[in-house]
């Protein structure tokens, strides 16, 4: 009897809740109608343009992903203040993939089902690769500020994919020629077995193998998160390498470089833009001194770049993090494409990206036939007194 009573009570409560919701919705409708009557015109539906922002917003790679969200918000604010894109207000929709491929596909599906037409992201190449087929099937234009894996554009499989950063092979070529300019003859190449790190390391290996002046003495992957890397450090030492090239991200890089320095191995350590991050300097501390890393070119003299950084400081109170200028540029390029195309028509947007120039913090860019931005590139940096300084 008691059970029955409580069941009935539950049903009543649920019914009441439903009724309440329904009532509210009705009230809203009425309110709208009234407003229309008062102004005497049919209120235009608030047009909005959703800009999806996908990337690592939590987890250990969040320091790469969050600047992109900030960049998107700043660009959206700026564009909205100027009246929006073709009258539509830009709305930023961040989606967290933690740089994990399996989460990236969820994110892509979510954005697809929400009807988003332009996506800024993803941050990591592995996640981007996993998500791209979904975007392609949904005819969504994707632009990454940081996914540097070359086949993403060069394979030609994804005409909907663009990026405002130069691909890894460009970075690897620069890395190898820089190693040569340091006078290194034997180089150990270490990577983190990931899409990005191993890809970069393999390109370095390719360029070194093709060059008789420089030789690779060790090519190995380490397991991210392993308790320590002392055995790998021993191996580098035993290989007689005069320098180390590392492909991967900063947690592993700082562990390896700390281990090397503690073992008295004072040979140059060179890495990629996964390591050209202030978190690396913070974590590796004094052992970071003298480490080389390639990273996107320095655009600090560009007035648009300065404006973007100033806006970031004004709104968030801090200096922007890695890939911020690329992300800011990508957001500008995407919104410009929508503007030129006069809407979110897939083919028109892609045409616009290939043909019309847009002024961005990374320079005046448009995209080549494969989807890479023309005119962006890499530079070599070195840690000096706790800061990355460009090596001229």
């Amino acid at each position, binding site marked *: 009897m008691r059970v029955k009573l409580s069941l009935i009570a539950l049903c009543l409560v649920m019914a009441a809740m439903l009724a309440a919701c329904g009532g509210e919705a009705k009230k809203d409708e009425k309110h709208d109608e009234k407003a229309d009557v008062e102004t005497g015109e049919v209120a235009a539906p608030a047009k909005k343009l959703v800009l999806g922002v996908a990337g690592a917003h939590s987890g250990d790679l969040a*320091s790469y992903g969050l600047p992109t969200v900030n960049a998107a918000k700043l660009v959206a604010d700026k564009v909205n203040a100027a009246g929006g894109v073709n009258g539509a207000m830009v709305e930023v929709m961040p989606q967290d993939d933690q740089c994990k491929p399996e989460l990236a596909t969820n994110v892509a599906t979510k954005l697809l089902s929400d009807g988003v037409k332009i996506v800024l992201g993803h941050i990591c190449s592995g996640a981007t690769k996993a998500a791209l087929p979904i975007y392609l099937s949904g005819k969504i234009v994707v632009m990454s500020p940081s996914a540097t894996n070359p086949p993403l554009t060069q394979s030609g499989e994804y005409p909907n994919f663009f990026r405002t950063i130069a691909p890894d092979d460009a970075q690897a070529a620069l890395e190898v020629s820089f190693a040569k300019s340091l006078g290194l003859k034997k180089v150990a190449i270490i990577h983190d077995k990931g899409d990005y790190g191993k890809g970069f390391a393999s390109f370095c290996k390719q360029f070194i193998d093709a060059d008789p002046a420089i030789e690779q003495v060790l090519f190995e992957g380490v*397991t991210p998160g392993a308790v*320590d890397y002392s055995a790998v450090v021993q191996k580098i030492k*035993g290989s007689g390498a005069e320098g180390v090239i590392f492909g991967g991200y900063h947690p592993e890089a700082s562990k390896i470089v700390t281990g090397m320095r503690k073992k008295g191995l004072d040979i140059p350590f060179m890495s990629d833009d996964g390591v050209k991050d202030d978190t690396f300097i913070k974590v590796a501390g004094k052992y970071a001194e003298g480490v080389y890393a390639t990273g996107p070119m320095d655009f600090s003299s560009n007035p648009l770049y300065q404006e973007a950084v100033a806006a970031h400081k004004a709104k968030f109170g801090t200096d922007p993090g890695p890939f911020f200028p690329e992300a800011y540029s990508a957001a500008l390029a995407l919104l410009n494409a929508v503007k030129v195309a006069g809407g979110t028509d897939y083919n028109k947007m892609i045409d616009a990206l290939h043909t019309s120039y847009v002024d961005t913090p990374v320079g005046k860019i448009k995209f080549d036939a494969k989807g890479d931005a023309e005119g962006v590139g890499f530079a070599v940096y070195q840690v000096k007194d706790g800061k990355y300084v460009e090596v001229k």
Partner: protein
Amino acid sequence: MEYFLELFMGGLTRGSIYALIALGYTMVYGIIELINFAHGEIYMIGAFTGLIVAGLLTMLGFPVSAILVIALVCAVIWAAAYGFTIEKMAYKPLRSAPRLSPLISAIGMSIFLQNYVMLAQTSDFLPFPELIPHFDFMDKAGSIMSSAELVIILATIASCVGLTLFIKFTKLGKAMRATAQNRKMAMLVGINVDMVISATFIIGSSLAAVGGVLIASHIGQINYYIGFIAGIKAFTAAVLGGIGSLPGAMLGGLVLGLTEAFATGYVSSDYEDVFAFLLLVLILIFRPSGIMGKEKTQKV
């Protein structure tokens, strides 16, 4: 030869850490037959406590060696408190439940603690101060072994010897052995089994915290996720040595550490984990109870 020795010392260091954590797994299993999957997180919490205490003391201007000792003590106390609380909250209510329930509770605890530390601290990697001062005690060219490695190995040996003596010669140690043999019987002869179980968790957690602070100071960085992989490896070490056996856990840790070091050094670091787990599979095929484990006849 020098290369071999260097790898050997590196493997020994890593193995010592595995052994320190594995002791906790094996003791808890020995007493209540539970795989405490939250044990790796205790190690992580120990390391974080060490970081916070070390930061505080550095600000107050303590000398490094004092910081190391105080940080170790604080980490041990704090981690022991966590171990004690986890047992009371997540395992004690389930003590008479089917064996699967506390296991799932342990996994839940592990995930909870990871996320708790991530939210309370940060998900970024944090620099850990070098608490073990660097000194060259061998010739400079060799540098076969660093001071940090020596300290870690010595600390592990000291902990293991201390633990063995404790179990052998104290009253509580005797009670622990009795409880491990037969919990009901121990209860009947007047042993406070709840107290013994709590003590087991406290001791295991303390050892893990020592490992956490030492290794974090050696490699110089921590984040909320370090307990997961270290925990899995230490669990493997415990199984390798024979879960439930203390010397087995130590031996298993060292064997696992050395296997990984030599696989990296002579084959490739790509195959580090492959060889480690291949070893596990082989041992389990030929000695299902692990290297030092005892065969137990199942009562029907």
